[in-house]
């Protein structure tokens, strides 16, 4: 045998040995798959750190954490469930959790709740994932929608926070300004994102704030109710004070309207935006003296304000390979030291689900939290007074009783209705009747119609 041949045989054997040994090393480990929606680099890094510490404590477990965009998540979860290979854990919309729980596809997370201490979790948070006596979802962090405004401009004009929708319209009018006197608007009164998710969030909030409902106990849509017509009329009026092309703005562009000084108020803001302001607003404006939050107003038929809460729960899927190990990972995730690292990556948007952490000194001493405390106070006010609900949820009973909300959201029926009224000049009554018909057909098709 010549030397060259020997060399190749040795190299081949070595490669084979390496592949077999690395595979068997991996095969010996229990691999748990974790999908989450925090794609920003800081949160990903925090999760990677938590995973590394967990793996060091559990050498027989490997955690494959994957950050997915919001828009991709639901489809990916469904496809994974259909193919019989779901991940152990995933984030998801509360209404996705409700839909999957109704189909019996989730496993309880009671052990994690017990480990955290049920009393240690905010009551509002518990309502998101609790069905009957079991927790099928556990929120990773909560952040409510916020009415952000330019405090400096409002103070200059002596404007106070709105109590009603009429007040908000007046404020929007007052804050729509031609600052350089060239006859063109330089700052618009209000900005909202025009994409489907945020319009659905908005419609849920406004319906609630106007004392209305989206669906009754027989699952029939209530889009033609007086409350909805009032809501559509209000939105139509409001768009007069919004930047042209708002319907094409995504969330980040809407925030760019705020920190770029093109808009004076943002109805669908979130605490996450404080980081955007810190990054992009002029250096002299990085404080609550310039960007503060007001409590949202109520509609003419409503008696309380309402906002949406972004609180995606962790879910564990039936049919996953390592549920016990996944539970261990979640317990570890919520341990104060680990959870704090995660929360601090988006401090104003990630409100901790545990009372102990939110009151702890290390959390309270976080510089961003000190600086933007006013934003957190409003969120805490909403949470404490049960003024916030997940997307399209009007009452907590909707979570278990209306498992079709996910399809309603995806269908864009509500967005189309809003576009028809605000952009196409269709009367609210006509647009609402069309949306009502489409939603009725969808709910009938899904087999939930009881009327």
């Amino acid at each position: 045998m010549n030397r060259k041949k020997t060399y190749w045989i040795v190299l081949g054997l070595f490669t084979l040995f390496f592949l077999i040994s690395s595979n068997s090393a991996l095969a010996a480990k229990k691999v748990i798959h974790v999908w989450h929606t925090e794609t920003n680099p800081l949160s990903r890094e925090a999760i990677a750190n938590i995973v590394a510490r967990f793996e060091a404590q559990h050498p027989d477990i490997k955690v494959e954490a994957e950050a997915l965009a919001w828009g991709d998540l639901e489809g990916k979860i469904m496809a994974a469930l259909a193919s019989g290979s779901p991940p152990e854990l995933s984030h998801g919309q509360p209404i996705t959790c409700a839909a999957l729980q109704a189909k019996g596809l989730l496993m309880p997370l009671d052990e994690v709740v017990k480990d955290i201490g049920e009393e240690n979790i905010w009551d509002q948070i518990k309502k998101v994932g609790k069905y009957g006596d079991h927790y099928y979802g556990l929120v990773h962090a909560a952040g409510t929608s916020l009415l952000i405004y330019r405090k400096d401009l409002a103070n200059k004009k002596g404007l106070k926070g709105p109590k009603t929708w009429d007040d908000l319209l007046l404020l929007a009018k007052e804050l729509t300004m031609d600052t350089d006197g060239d006859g063109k608007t330089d700052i618009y009164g209000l900005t909202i994102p025009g994409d489907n998710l945020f319009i659905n969030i908005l419609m849920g909030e406004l319906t609630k704030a106007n004392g209305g409902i989206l669906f009754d106990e027989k699952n029939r849509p209530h889009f033609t109710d007086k409350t909805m017509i009032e809501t559509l009329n209000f939105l139509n009026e409001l768009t007069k004070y919004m930047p042209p092309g708002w319907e094409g703005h995504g969330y980040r562009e809407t925030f760019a309207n705020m920190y770029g000084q093109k808009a004076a108020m943002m109805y669908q803001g979130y605490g996450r935006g404080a980081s955007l302001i810190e990054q992009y607003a002029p250096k002299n404006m990085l404080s609550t003296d310039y960007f503060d939050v007001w409590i949202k107003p109520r509609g003419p038929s409503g008696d309380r304000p309402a906002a949406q809460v972004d609180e995606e729960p962790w879910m564990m899927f039936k049919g996953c390979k390592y549920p016990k190990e996944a539970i261990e990972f979640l317990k570890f995730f919520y341990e104060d030291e680990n959870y704090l690292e995660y929360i601090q990556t988006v401090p104003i948007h990630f409100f901790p689900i545990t009372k102990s952490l939110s009151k702890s000194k290390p959390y309270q001493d976080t510089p961003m939290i000190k600086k933007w405390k006013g934003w957190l106070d409003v969120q805490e006010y909403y949470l404490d007074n049960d003024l916030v609900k997940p997307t399209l949820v009007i009452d907590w009973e909707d979570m278990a009783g209306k498992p079709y909300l996910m399809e309603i959201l995806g269908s864009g029926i509500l967005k189309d209705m809003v576009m028809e009224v605000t952009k196409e000049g269709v009367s609210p009554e006509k647009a609402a009747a069309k949306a009502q018909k489409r939603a009725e057909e969808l709910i009938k098709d899904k087999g939930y119609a009881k009327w």
Partner: protein
Amino acid sequence: MRLSPQKAGFVLIVPSVFLVCSLLVYPVLYGVWLSFFKKHSFFPDQRFVGLANYVYVMKDPEFWMSVWYGTVYSVSTIVLQIVIGVIAALIVNEAFRGRNFVRGVILFPYMIPTVVAIILWKWLLNNQFGLVNYLLLALGIVQDPVSWMGKDHIMTSLILISVWEFFPFVLLSVLARMQSIPPVLYEAAKVDGAGVFRRFFHVTLPQLRNVLFVVILLRSIWMFTKFDTVWLLTQGGGAEKYIRTLPVYAYMRTFMYYQAGLGSTLAVLMFVILIVSTAIYFKMFRREGEI
């Protein structure tokens, strides 16, 4: 044992037949079969409903709107791609300094991934800090920034982006054919006193007839079924309702309404529309023996 040449031939084509059946015939037939069912996209609940999905779709205004948007989009982009592609091919067919570099650069839009192209264009067309609006305002062409992703302009934006992305395909095909046109034809035309335009209309264009026939056919199919460019343009902002073409609507029915039966019905109808259009196209423009 020796197989007869006939049997050996059959045995040899078995793998190909298997591949064609499993990768082409089966998915198409499954799609057609699914269109007769009311079926959840991911769960096994399904019920035979006969032609109910087709009846529903025929009465669905959203379907007709998506056909309209799809037609506007595909016809506009095809016409512009052909016109720009042929003009560009005429230019780069001429001899000039740096021609090879220009030929390379001009193919760039067709080579980059769609997702990159869309991110780039969304940034350029941003109505507050986009370069396009900045230039239009600076040159005094518009008085106020144009909302390129808003209701009134999103279809225009989509068409412009698609033309930019796909005209190099037309250019490439036409240029390849142009390079094989015998120079003697142009010389003869010149001798007969034909100017630039007459040479183009009486020599170049007739020579391009066959390649244009195929290019228009392919691009029509691809643009009518185009999904990624349209879908990506509306992700994270963009007035989606006003560019909801048929492929997007079929996707929404399948993956957002979770109605796989209706989604398949829309896909089958899209297939039928294309087959019928192609048949009409062949009937109108095909010359026996030329193609």
